[in-house]
C-alpha cells in the first residue's frame, strides 16, 4: 500500500519534471562537452580510413558549420572594420573568408590522425563567452595548447568564434591583417584580395 503511493508520487513528480523540462529549451551542454563532442566527431572522420580525401573534406565542412559561427568569427576578425562593409560586401565576405579558412585548416587537419587530445578546462571570458582549453599531443610527443573560444548563440548552442593555438589568437591575427589592409584600402580591395586568394587555392 505504502509502496503504491510512493510509486504514484514518483510518477507525478516525474511527469511534472518532464513538463518543466519540455517548457524550457533543453539546456545546452557545457562548453567543454560541446567542444569535446565535436572534436571527437572530427577525429572520427580523420581516422576513417575508408573515406577518400574529398569525402573527408566534405564531412569536415559540415562539422565546421556545426561547430563554428562564421559570422561571429568574421565580426571578431574585422573588429570595428565590420561597419565599413556594406550589407552586400558582408554577404560576399563571409563565404570567401570561410573558404580561405577551410582550405588551409582543412589541409592541416587532414594531416593529423594519431593525435591525442586532452580537454582540460573551461575558463570564463565574459558573459556567455568561455574559453575551452585543450592540448593536442602530437606523434612527436609535443604538446600544443589549443584553445577554443565559444559563445552562446541565439539558439542556445555553444559555437566557436576563435581558436587560440600556442597562445596565438586566430581572430586577433586576422584582425591585425585586416586592420592594416583596410587602413590603406577600401573594403572592395579587401574582397578582391580574398577572391584572388580563393581562386589561387583552387588551382
Amino acid at each position, binding site marked *: 500500500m505504502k509502496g503504491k503511493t510512493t510509486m504514484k508520487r514518483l510518477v507525478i513528480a516525474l511527469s511534472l519534471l518532464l513538463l518543466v523540462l519540455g517548457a524550457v529549451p533543453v539546456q545546452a551542454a*557545457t562548453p*567543454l*562537452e560541446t567542444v*569535446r563532442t565535436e572534436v571527437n566527431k572530427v577525429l572520427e572522420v580523420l581516422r576513417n580510413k575508408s573515406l577518400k580525401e574529398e569525402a573527408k573534406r566534405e564531412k569536415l565542412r559540415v562539422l565546421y558549420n556545426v561547430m563554428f559561427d562564421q559570422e561571429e568569427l568574421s*565580426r*571578431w576578425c*574585422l*573588429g*570595428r572594420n*565590420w*561597419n*565599413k562593409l556594406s550589407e552586400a560586401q558582408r554577404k560576399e565576405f563571409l563565404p570567401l573568408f570561410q573558404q*580561405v*579558412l577551410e*582550405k*588551409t*585548416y582543412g*589541409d*592541416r587537419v587532414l*594531416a593529423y590522425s594519431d593525435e591525442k587530445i*586532452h*580537454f*582540460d*578546462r*573551461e*575558463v*570564463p*571570458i*565574459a558573459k556567455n*563567452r568561455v*574559453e575551452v*582549453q585543450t*592540448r593536442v599531443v602530437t*606523434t*612527436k*610527443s*609535443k*604538446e600544443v595548447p589549443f584553445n577554443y573560444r565559444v559563445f552562446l548563440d541565439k539558439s542556445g548552442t555553444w559555437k566557436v568564434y576563435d581558436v587560440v593555438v*600556442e*597562445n*596565438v*589568437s586566430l581572430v*586577433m*591575427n*586576422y*584582425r*591585425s*591583417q*585586416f*586592420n*592594416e*589592409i*583596410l*587602413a590603406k584600402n577600401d573594403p572592395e580591395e579587401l574582397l578582391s*584580395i*580574398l577572391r584572388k*586568394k580563393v581562386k589561387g*587555392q583552387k588551382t
Partner: protein
Amino acid sequence: MKFLSLVLALCASVLVGCAHGPQALSAPMPGGETPLPSTQAVASYSLEQHPASLQLAKDEAASPATAGKPEEKAEEKAEDDESDFDYGMEDVPAAEQVTIADPWEPFNRAMFTFNDRLYFWVLKPVAEGYSAVVPEPARVSVGNFFSNLRAPIRFANCLLQAQFIGAATELFRFMLNSTIGLAGLFDPAGGEEINLVRQDEDFGQTLGSYGTGQGFYIVWPLLGPSSPRDTVGMVGDFFSYPLSYLDPWYVWSGVRGYQAINDTSLQIGDYEAIKEAAIDPYLSVRNAYIQYRQKKVEERGATIRRPGPDIPGAGTPARGIGP
C-alpha cells in the same frame, strides 16, 4: 651515407655565410620546445627567443586608420550603435591586443622574403632529405639532446626572474635527463610520471619581465622575427649556451646548422600552413610573433606543471594561472 655527408656539407656551406653573430644563440628546441611554429620555421633558427617588441596598445587606438582620420572615427562610432555587441577589445586579453611599431618595414619585408626563400629553397629540401634518411624518433631524440644542452639558459633565466621553483625544475630536469635520459636523448623528467615540464624562459622574456618593452619589430636574416629587446636577449642567451663555446668556428657552425636542419625536419608544414592561411603573410607572422612573445612574458612561471587532467566540465581557475 653519401647523402648524409652531402647534406651536412650543404648545411655547413649555408651556415658559413652567416657564421658570425648571435644567430647561434637561439636555437629553437625541437622536441618540445617549439613555440610558435611559423616563426620558427621561417628562420628555423631560433625564434623562440627573439621577440619582437610589443607595444601594448589597444589595437583600435593604434591603428593608423582611426588615428589619422577623425571624421571617420566619428562616423564609425555612430555606426557602432547599430550593432548589439561591441567587437572591440573589451573581452580580449591584453596579450592579444598587442601591436608593434614597424619603422623598418621595407627592410623587414625584404628580410622576410629572404628567409622565406631560404626556407623553401634550402632548409626545407635539406630537412626533407634528412627526414627521409633518419627516422622520426631519432630526430626527436636529437632535438631533446640539444634542448637538454640549453638547460643553462632556462635555469639562469628562471633565476633572473626570481622563479625559484622553475629554476629547481630545470635543475632536476637536467640531472635526470642527462643521466637516465641518456645524455638528454630522452626526456623522462617531462613524462607523465615525473611531470617536470620544461620552463621555456629566455633572456628576452627576462627583460620583458623587468618591464622592458619590445621597442620595434625587426626581421633578421636567418634568425627571423625579433626586436631590440629580444635581440639583446639572444645575445645574452648565446653566452649561457654551452655549444656557443665550440671551437673552431666551423665546428660550431656545422653543429648549429645541423641543429637547424633537425629542428626544421620536425616542423615541416607549420610555416607553410601559416603562410597559406594569411592574407598578408608578413603581417600574419609579425602579429603571431608578438602575441606569442607577449604571452610568454605574461605567463611566466605558469607552467611549472602540466595543466590538470582530463576532467569533464572541470573547474575554472583564473585565467593564465596554472592548475
